[in-house]
């Protein structure tokens, strides 16, 4: 694990402990994905609305804590704000608000919305003949939503080579509606498909550089809670739970031991 990603996981743990909020296992599954995206996209943390920026939409909005930690790491805002997450007057909700958090392009939370917005944004950039691009991150649990597949059909029909859909295959769907062989499905829906180890930052960076003739889907094979065996073994117990002080220290030790 890259030290930067380990550090982001430490911030996630700390933010969850202090705030009492956050979906830690799902946040841990997307750290490398988020970090890799921002190594490829064009952005300016000192000018978040820079007109030439690329656009990233976190469609699986409950990964907001991980997104906050990455944005803070990139310099969008003071990392000290993260511990305020979920407080009444905090800028940081458990799902992000684009009017309150620099770097957030769309307020998400209800699943199956961000990907449709991303299609519209990619279409806008195509009409403008802009070389800017749009990346959206969806979850495999989120892919239970029909709107995800409807948006993919529309995106394929619109032929949007400037759009990348990253599919976080962290097995969230496994206890409910199963999505069998997502690569085959995404291919059938008209995407170019790349499969990568979702915790291999370099592979994710390379995948994000791809530019073909149609929508690019990256299936990132990940594990919920990656980095701490406690989370990986009990992802549902920890789905929406934050650690107390003792648990926090123990989880930090697990993370530092990097036993995965």
């Amino acid at each position, binding site marked *: 694990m890259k030290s930067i990603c380990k550090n982001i996981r430490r911030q996630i743990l700390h933010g969850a402990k202090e705030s009492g909020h956050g979906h830690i296992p799902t946040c841990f599954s997307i750290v490398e994905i988020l970090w890799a995206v921002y190594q490829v996209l064009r952005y300016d943390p000192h000018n978040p609305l820079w007109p030439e920026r690329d656009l990233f939409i976190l469609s699986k909005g409950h990964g907001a804590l991980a997104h906050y930690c990455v944005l803070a790491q990139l310099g969008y805002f003071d990392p000290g704000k993260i511990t305020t997450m979920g407080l009444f007057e905090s800028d940081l909700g458990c799902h992000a608000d*684009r*009017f309150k958090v620099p770097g957030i*392009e*769309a*307020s998400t*939370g*209800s699943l*199956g*919305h961000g*990907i*449709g*917005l*991303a*299609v*519209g*944004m*990619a*279409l*806008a*950039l195509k*009409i*403008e003949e802009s070389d800017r691009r749009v990346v959206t991150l969806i979850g495999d649990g989120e892919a239970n939503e*029909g*709107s995800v597949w*409807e*948006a993919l*059909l*529309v995106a394929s*029909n*619109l032929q949007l080579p400037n759009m990348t859909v990253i599919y976080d295959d962290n097995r969230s769907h496994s206890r409910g509606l199963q999505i069998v062989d997502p690569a085959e499905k995404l291919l059938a829906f008209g995407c170019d498909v790349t499969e990568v180890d979702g915790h291999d930052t370099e592979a994710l960076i390379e995948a994000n550089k791809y530019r073909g003739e149609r929508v690019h889907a990256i299936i990132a094979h990940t594990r919920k809670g990656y980095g701490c065996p406690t989370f990986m073994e009990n992802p549902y117990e920890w789905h929406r739970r934050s650690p107390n002080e003792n648990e926090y220290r123990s989880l930090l030790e697990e993370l530092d031991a990097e036993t995965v």
Partner: protein
Amino acid sequence: MRKQFKETVMDLSLRDNRIVMIFGDVSVYLFNDFKEKYPNRFYNMGISENTLISVGAGLAAQGFHPFVHTIAPFITERSYEQIKLDMCYNRFGGNIVSCGASFDYAWDGATHHAYTDLAILRLLPGMEVIQPGSTKELNTLLRSQYNNETPTYLRLSDHPHTIDVPVEFGRGVALKDGGCDVTVMTAGPLLGNVLEACRDLPVNLLYFHTIKPIDTGLIHRFRHTRMIVVHDAFGLKEAVCEVPEIRVISHGIRDAFCGCYGTLHDIRRSLGLDTEGIRERIIRELHCRQ
């Protein structure tokens, strides 16, 4: 009214290259001119109402002026959360223009009847809700609201009225103001029936082409009269009821699906919304007052 919709959009497009048309496989042929002239801003995205709204919001986020157009119940009731979150909560804006509302598709039955659209959309913060009753009203209101970066709903009708009414967004009109004890209120194409029904009756008549924001000042002016909302949809009565000190009775939609087919006139008659039914109800109210 759809023809007017196209003509207004074609005219606006002469000066505005940010207009994008998104169709749900409806009215596509009608807009052939637009397609030929602006092929990269014309998209028939098929029967995918949720995505039509999300894509419209995404286009608006990047500074375009999208018109999402398809059949009323599907684009409003099915896509309510997309309108709520993608257009309203995110404040990306965009225009939704529906057809077939109320009972324009009477013969298709309850799946195609749409009388909740105005009522549910007016609950969304930031949403503008417009029910033009005539082609003139559509033309004026579409031009004034389409590019204001605010989510706007315009509901077309296949049966517009032809009464020449002053048009200004957010302003109601007192078509009869005789200091009467009873005030009738209506909106949209039904004005044709309502005006005919009460032409010689001693009532005030208020007309609204904008449901949200409702013209509270106009309503408040008549607060000491007995008020009847006559409408072929939910939404106007609820808007009127939110004005302080107002008590209102309504005549129109009931708490039941309409299980019949036929024509718009057939269904209006069954609900007492034909000219005779409306007149009868108002006369009953006048007698009640006496």
